[in-house]
């Protein structure tokens, strides 16, 4: 590893990979460091992504696609099911990735573009000069060293510490941390082309439980519940075990993962002198779905672009880097995050009876487009008596 780069990227997930690739393609010397011994493992993800969203970054490849989906189903507490079929939803539904391979592919492409990549290498502190980030102290396979850089892009995921060390408050409120557990299960009866989302206080308080297919009889079966609902006897794992015992008693668990998903608002500011923050570290996960792969790639690429321009111009001050913060907030992604935050705030107040009513009203839904805003408009149209109550939702998509 050299001791000086134009740009240092901390974290080898989708955000870091896209940031490194973009900056290397712009002709800069880039170093990406990842603290784990292997990119992509252990997986901390249910691996779902919209087809069009994925294609914005990379052409789908069967080496890292586990399932090509045809529908999504939302299952209310009473079992009523809203089925959103590809044929009826108008546009495509999604893929289930194999992130062990997918994440590697992204980092591979960053390396191909010219980035140096180091695994088993973790940032332990920023190097600060006059209040500005100027690189990082790292430990690479046990050896301590300083890596200086004009710009550091912190893409260190949900457990992010780098931005915090540099002075940004990245703490996630307990109630807005989805505490998740997932089993990769095999030998279970599933619909291999449907992503299933189970809702309800008894099933997943202030969250949802998912069954995402990975093959004919194999699926990611996982759950996320709000951190404030988690305590002895009602932890995420307890809910998941109850569901599995009821629905998949004969299934075999071949992988067991845990993870955290922040569903708070994004960081109030995602830049500082010499520093940009991208992906989960910037808290840009969709507050309704918990999906963050696209948003990580989107902010990573944008950080790589704006960061490269600033490095070329010779100024990586907070003011110069603000263009990144403003651009992603003004983007379709940024606006969706803001809207979905308000929508989530409404949905977590609903008890099971209301969820059943709303789901019942959406039976036979025929959506032109598979979008949250379309779903909300349908809810409002079909529940005129609840108009007052649904006003908050209406305002959120205004």
């Amino acid at each position: 590893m050299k001791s000086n780069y134009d740009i240092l990227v901390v974290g080898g997930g989708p955000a870091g990979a896209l940031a490194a690739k973009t900056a290397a393609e712009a002709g800069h010397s880039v170093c990406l460091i990842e603290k784990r011994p292997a990119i992509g493992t252990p997986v901390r993800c249910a691996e779902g992504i919209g087809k069009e969203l994925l294609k914005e970054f990379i052409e789908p490849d069967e080496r890292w696609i586990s399932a090509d989906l045809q529908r999504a189903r939302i299952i209310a507490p009473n079992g009523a099911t809203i089925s959103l079929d590809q044929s009826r939803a108008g546009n495509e539904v999604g893929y289930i990735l194999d992130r062990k391979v997918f994440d590697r592919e992204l980092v591979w492409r960053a390396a191909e573009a010219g980035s140096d990549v180091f695994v088993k290498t973790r940032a332990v502190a920023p190097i600060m000069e006059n209040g500005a980030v100027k690189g990082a102290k790292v430990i690479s396979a046990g050896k301590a060293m300083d890596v200086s850089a004009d710009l550091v892009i912190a893409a260190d995921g949900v457990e992010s510490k780098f931005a915090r060390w540099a002075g940004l408050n990245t703490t996630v409120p307990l109630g807005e941390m989805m505490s998740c557990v997932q089993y990769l299960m095999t030998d279970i009866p599933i619909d291999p082309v449907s992503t299933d989302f189970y809702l309800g206080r008894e099933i997943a308080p202030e969250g949802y439980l998912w069954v995402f297919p990975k093959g004919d009889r194999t699926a990611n079966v996982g759950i996320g519940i709000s951190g404030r609902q988690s305590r002895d006897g009602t932890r995420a794992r307890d809910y998941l075990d109850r569901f599995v015992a009821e629905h998949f008693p004969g299934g075999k668990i071949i992988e067991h993962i845990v993870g955290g998903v922040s569903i708070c608002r994004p960081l109030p500011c995602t830049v500082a002198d010499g520093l940009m923050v991208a992906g989960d570290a910037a808290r840009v996960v969709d507050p309704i779905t918990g999906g963050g792969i696209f948003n990580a790639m989107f902010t990573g690429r944008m950080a790589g672009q704006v960061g490269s321009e600033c490095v070329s111009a010779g100024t990586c001050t907070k003011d110069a880097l603000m263009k990144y913060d403003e651009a992603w907030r003004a983007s379709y992604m940024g606006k969706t995050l803001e809207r979905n935050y308000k929508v989530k705030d409404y949905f977590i107040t609903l008890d099971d009876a209301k969820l059943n009513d709303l789901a019942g009203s959406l039976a036979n839904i025929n959506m032109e487009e598979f979008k949250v805003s379309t779903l909300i408009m349908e809810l409002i149209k079909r529940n005129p008596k609840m108009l007052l109550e649904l006003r908050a939702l209406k305002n959120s998509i205004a």
Partner: protein
Amino acid sequence: MLTINRDICGYCGCCVAVCPEGALELIDAYLNLEGDCISCGICARACPLGALEVVHEE
């Protein structure tokens, strides 16, 4: 005092992200108490597996 049961921990990072003191850190695949802990118990609430416990001394 915060106790970490590393046999239970799955290294997810929930506790790291919610700790108001920034006291926890995931190093390689190992959770460590690195900073000043005020024994508030927030991390223990966030843990999906129950690997953390705040034990108050008598």
